[in-house]
């Protein structure tokens, strides 16, 4: 088992490098790049723009820029005697802007050491801090929708399988196809129209707890009403997937020999399904963990925007609009790492439950 886990973790490393190269290449292909994003104001002189370009190092070749982002530049140009002026350099020249003076030493530590750089906005704070203060809101939404999806989806799938071909089965089949084809953002808007504001006025329009991000938020149980609509919007997709998946899994288990044995020894139908069938039918659900992470992340981007939810998804969209490159890159990288961890956990869970998988 340990060998299997280690092998899977090692396999994830080249994937992560692939992602980082791809994401960086897309960013570099952007016309204008970060300099254009920072010097949008017409009052910026060409000299200032050039100086900023030298400071950001956007004139360096691709591999240098990528390495700086990945590993940082504190080792590329560093200060060995501690006087605040770089005296030695690898890979990037001491005098980058060509004014005859050595540049200050590099300070970036690179994403591998957890430094995603400073945001262009948000008071130029570290990107990672900006993201972390919004993470709680997204986690709240993600966990809530997963819980709702699982607690409703699994029983519905089991019932549909037990009553195969019956009216309940057909009804849930239709509902799940409809939920799958429903545009998430439209569902959000329609629900707002019906339940929020000038509609029935039952549920709040959004704004998890005002626009306050840190502190000042009442505990979760006092503001559950804010969670209802956004959670349902994300959970709708999960409901459709989990219930169909669970139905297929239960039906598959139903054909196994041990179920026939259980029946043959005279157990009641309910006993057969719930004691013997259900436990084994739950196993394949473990494989859905990976895709669910992607679902939560993509769902958050859309849903947080509709319901003004102060989470990472909303940060992603606003950063894209402002062209806040460091933040966008950090969010995409963290989203990919989360996805990889999701798939990794899926595989490990599955291998724990089903020993045959470990041999592959």
């Amino acid at each position, binding site marked *: 088992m340990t060998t299997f886990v280690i092998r899977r973790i090692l396999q994830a490393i*080249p*994937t*992560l490098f*692939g*992602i980082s190269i*791809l*994401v960086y290449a*897309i*960013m570099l*292909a*952007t*016309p204008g790049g970060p300099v254009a994003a920072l010097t949008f104001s017409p009052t910026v002189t060409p000299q200032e723009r050039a100086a900023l370009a030298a400071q950001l190092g956007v004139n360096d070749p691709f591999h240098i820029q990528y390495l700086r982002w990945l590993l940082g530049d504190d080792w590329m140009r560093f200060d060995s005697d501690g006087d605040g002026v770089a005296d030695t350099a690898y890979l990037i020249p001491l005098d980058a802007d060509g004014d005859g003076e050595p540049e200050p030493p590099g300070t970036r530590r690179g994403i591998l050491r957890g430094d995603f750089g400073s945001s262009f906005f948000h008071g130029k704070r570290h990107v990672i801090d900006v993201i972390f203060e919004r993470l709680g809101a997204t986690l709240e939404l993600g966990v809530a929708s997963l819980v709702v999806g699982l607690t409703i989806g699994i029983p519905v799938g089991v019932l549909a399988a037990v009553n195969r071909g019956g009216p309940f089965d057909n009804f849930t089949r239709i509902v799940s*196809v*409809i939920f*799958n*084809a*429903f*545009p*998430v*953002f*439209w569902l959000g*808007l*329609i629900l*707002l*129209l019906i339940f929020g*504001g*000038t509609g029935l006025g039952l549920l709040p329009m959004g704004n998890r707890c005002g626009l306050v991000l840190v502190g000042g938020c009442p505990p979760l149980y006092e503001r559950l009403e804010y969670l209802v609509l956004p959670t349902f919007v994300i959970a709708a997709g999960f409901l459709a997937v989990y219930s169909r998946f669970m139905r297929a899994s239960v039906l598959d288990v139903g054909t196994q020999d041990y179920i026939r044995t259980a029946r043959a020894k005279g157990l009641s139908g309910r006993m057969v399904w719930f004691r013997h069938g259900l436990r084994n039918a739950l196993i394949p659900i473990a494989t859905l963990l990976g895709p669910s992470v*992607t679902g939560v*992340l*993509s769902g958050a*981007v*859309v849903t947080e*925007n509709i319901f003004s939810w102060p989470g990472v998804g909303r940060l*992603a*969209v606003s950063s*894209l*609009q402002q*062209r806040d490159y460091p933040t*966008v890159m950090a*969010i*995409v990288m963290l*989203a*990919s790492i989360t*996805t*990889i961890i999701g*798939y990794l956990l899926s595989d490990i869970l599955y291998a724990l439950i089903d020993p045959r998988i470990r041999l592959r």
Partner: protein
Amino acid sequence: MSSPVGTRLETNNVAGEAQVSPSLLQLALRRLWRDRLSMAAIGMLLFLTLLCFGAPVINFLTGTNSRNIVADSFLPPLTPGHILGTDDIGRDHLARLLEAGQVSLSIGFLAALMALAIGVTVGLLSGFIGGHLDDGVIWFITTLNSIPLLFIILLIAAFLSPNATTLILALGLFGWTGTARLVRGEAIALREREFIISARASGAGNLRLMFAHVLPNQLSIILINLAIDIGIIILVEATLSFLGFGVQPPQPTWGNMLTESRSFMYYGPHLVFWPGFLIFVTVLCLYVLGDGLRDAFDPTTID
């Protein structure tokens, strides 16, 4: 797939005359024809496509157009001359919906075709040739799949100029992994089959084997995937437009019409309803059609 496409069984009927039994494709089409739900979905899709691309004729008949202010703002549906009412600045809602449909449908169809072409080629090569090529392709697919599709398309669409061409390229270039995986798996299963070995023995080269023998046997997978992929791509495109990174106004698409309607959803709820409904109906029909195709091509289906 029990028998290769194109092989027909010669059987003798009671009278002793040679009779050709229908091919898998013919059987599938016959089943599809009898499947009322799938035919309804096809009919609906054809109707929507005709309506959207026939917009100039409809506009000529009703005397409106999609870009100009033709009446007061927020006219409710069923106003004479403006069946679906007008939007916030008095443009005809139906005319705009139809023009938006042209964009959304074209992007969905073209991007899905592009993804299909890439996916089928990569999948065939990787599965049939195998070896290091296969390892490389699998690594690349795993890498692409580890970035949530919406994020990578958002990245491209936002950083490059968001327009229809960029969207088609982005969706086509990053939406092929699912098809490639399926085609690869099927190619691996098929490459050891007797009919491939016998074709190889009669001197067929790799290219001929792949495209003349393996590919036709994947017709069902390809068609099912195409239908579902168009649906997914239309959804992703609408999501992008909704977030403001898709096709930009004044060119309407169903997604960006929803964004616009959001600011005044209480004055004109009909403006929120129709664009989303059309996305929903289109995607639903494509999914239903995909399901219907799967059943039609399933050799275990009993007639």
